[in-house]
């Protein structure tokens, strides 16, 4: 959206956006929340409404914009205590005059009897007073539904809330009003609050899917301005609050490098047409024992040898196992660690949700600033969330790596030993730039290992399936399996050399006529 175009087309000025300062929310909201308007934040219990409402103010205070928090549900004291774990010291902000509370939570000690008609004029006066007192530009109201339970006359409450919403608009503040909903996919909010604050609606969801919780945020509507559509996963982390994981927004700004880096194995570099591209992500797929961890180890070794810092995220093996394996192949992980070239993060994938993993990994990468990141294996993470969450995790991690210009390598385990595909592979193969397949090949009563570069975005590469052996020094590439077919399918079949030569001669003739120097991206 270009504001100049809109302004030229219409007499009215486009709705201004207020950058909230909440990580990535501004991204999906295309600039922020509509300025000087009220936005309804609707969500079920436990969907993160209060955290969002407080964070909206906290992010503003960080930018020098003062705020007022109106609470109808939890007491101001509870909120002050609960928000401390996010690193927000509300009490201090109050002392500094950056924040004011309007505590409208029910007080169990005060007994109230209704005797005749009334309105919420005192509440409005208090809100206006608080806004004036700290000169607030942001107001959070949490939550509207709780007002309805305090009074018996719901029509009156509805009318009064409308009056307060209008007053907030008139005061020129940008407000966030939270409301409950009973279902994650149902009516916008209870008590019909959306009827009077329907300009902008943002929905927080916390859905139980396959026994895992998945949080998403969706901008349902922004009247008069643009926003990204659909649900975006988010997570709530200590010392950070709500972190939205933007899937599409990040990919737009991705650069592409043509610098080649070594995979750590000369032969594999050659097969890839000179090495992996910097800021590319490679998927190494194969059955257990085919050499995925070795490929990763080589990749890290190659990085350290070239003076690049490497990060290994291991979800299958412990640190000791990894070090022992590497030593067996002739690589000294412990020395690399001592030199500060390698960091190993070994953890159980089930310890937290995939969204949390993504945030954690991003944090580790920001701290350590590696040039290479290897993840072994993605398949271990597959079960930490739903398929959709898994895919989003891979998209999020891939785009983050590219954004930071880091070379990545992920491994995926295939289910069957002899071939076939894996869930991991089929779900993420389009997201990675290169794919290296490792396969067992049965020949004359002997198991051999085969490797092929299946895909190499933006580069020519060796199409052959090559035999390789594993020994001291890592992977030794051998000849191509020229007289075998059906390796990738998992059913290798021997073909007589005569047949092979005849077929290849025909192919070679055809290919010679139109051999491209580089193969465009798949």
């Amino acid at each position: 959206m270009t504001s100049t175009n809109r302004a030229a087309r219409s007499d009215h000025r486009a709705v201004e956006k207020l950058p909230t300062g909440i990580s990535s929310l501004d991204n999906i909201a295309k600039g922020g929340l509509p300025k000087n308007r009220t936005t309804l934040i609707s969500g079920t219990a436990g969907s993160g409404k209060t955290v969002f409402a407080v964070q909206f103010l906290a992010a503003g205070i960080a930018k020098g914009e003062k705020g007022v928090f109106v609470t109808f549900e939890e007491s101001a004291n509870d909120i002050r205590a609960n928000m401390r774990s996010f690193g927000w010291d509300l009490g201090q902000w109050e002392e500094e005059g950056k924040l004011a509370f309007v505590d409208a939570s029910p007080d169990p000690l005060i007994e109230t009897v209704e005797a005749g008609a009334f309105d919420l004029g005192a509440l409005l006066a208090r809100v206006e007073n608080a806004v004036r007192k700290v000169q607030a530009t942001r107001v959070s109201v949490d939550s509207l539904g709780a007002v309805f339970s305090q009074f018996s006359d719901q029509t009156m409450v509805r009318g009064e809330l409308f009056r307060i919403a209008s007053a907030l608009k008139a005061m020129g503040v940008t407000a966030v009003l939270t409301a409950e909903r009973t279902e994650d996919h149902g009516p916008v909010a209870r008590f019909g609050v959306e009827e009077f604050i329907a300009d902008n609606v943002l929905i927080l969801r916390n859905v139980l899917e396959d026994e895992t919780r998945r949080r998403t945020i969706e901008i349902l509507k922004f009247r008069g301005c643009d926003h990204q559509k659909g649900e975006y996963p988010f997570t709530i982390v200590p010392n950070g609050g709500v972190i939205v994981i933007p899937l599409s927004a990040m990919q737009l700004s991705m650069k592409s490098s043509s610098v080649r880096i070594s995979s750590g194995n000369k032969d594999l570099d050659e097969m890839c047409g000179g090495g992996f591209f910097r800021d590319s992500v490679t998927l190494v797929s194969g059955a257990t024992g085919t050499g995925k961890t070795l490929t990763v180890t080589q990749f890290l070794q190659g990085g350290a040898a070239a003076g690049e810092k490497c990060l290994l995220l291991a979800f299958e093996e412990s640190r000791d196992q990894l070090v022992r394996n590497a030593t067996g192949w002739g690589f000294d992980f412990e020395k690399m660690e001592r030199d500060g070239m390698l960091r190993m993060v070994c953890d159980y994938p089930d310890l937290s949700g995939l969204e949390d993993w993504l945030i954690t990994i991003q944090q580790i990468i920001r701290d350590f600033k590696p040039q290479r990141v290897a993840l072994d294996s993605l398949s271990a993470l597959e079960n930490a969330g739903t398929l959709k969450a898994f895919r989003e995790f891979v998209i999020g991690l891939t785009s983050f790596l590219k954004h930071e210009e880091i070379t990545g390598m992920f491994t995926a385990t295939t289910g069957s030993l002899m071939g076939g595909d894996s869930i991991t592979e089929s779900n993420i193969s389009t997201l990675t730039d290169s794919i290296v397949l490792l396969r067992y090949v049965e020949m004359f009563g002997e198991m051999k290992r085969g490797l092929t570069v299946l895909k190499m975005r933006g580069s020519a590469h060796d199409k052959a399936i090559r035999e390789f052996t594993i020994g001291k020094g890592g992977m030794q590439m051998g000849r191509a399996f020229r007289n075998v077919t059906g390796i990738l399918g998992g059913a290798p079949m021997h073909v007589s050399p005569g047949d092979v030569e005849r077929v290849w001669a025909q192919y070679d003739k055809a290919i010679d006529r139109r051999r491209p120097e580089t193969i465009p991206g798949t």
Partner: protein
Amino acid sequence: MQPPGPACPVCPGLVASHLRLPQAEGLLSKYLLTLYVTGTSPRTQTAIDNLNRICTEELEGRYELKIVDVLENPQRAEDERILATPTLIKELPPPLRRVIGDLSDKDKVLLGLEVRPRPNNKPPASPEAS
């Protein structure tokens, strides 16, 4: 909410200062009432009229009434955590009681204020004889 000041030894949650007044014998049954209103709306006027009538009829000579306009004095409303107007607060005698509304329902007002019937009067719940 934790009220400011030392806690009252008799009434949990209340401030000790609310016991300050009824030391003298004659003040024991004195009603201290505060009515919070917004501006000079018709509803404000109705509430004031209703309250005056109830006080005259039921509390003659033993009440003290203050009226606070929250538009002029929003901090008072903040301190007392008042949402609705009109709100009538009975500060004395304890316990603290609140009645919200324009006070047109006299029985509920008396119930809410826990006004005990005068010794020579009929119970407050009975309809007024005119």
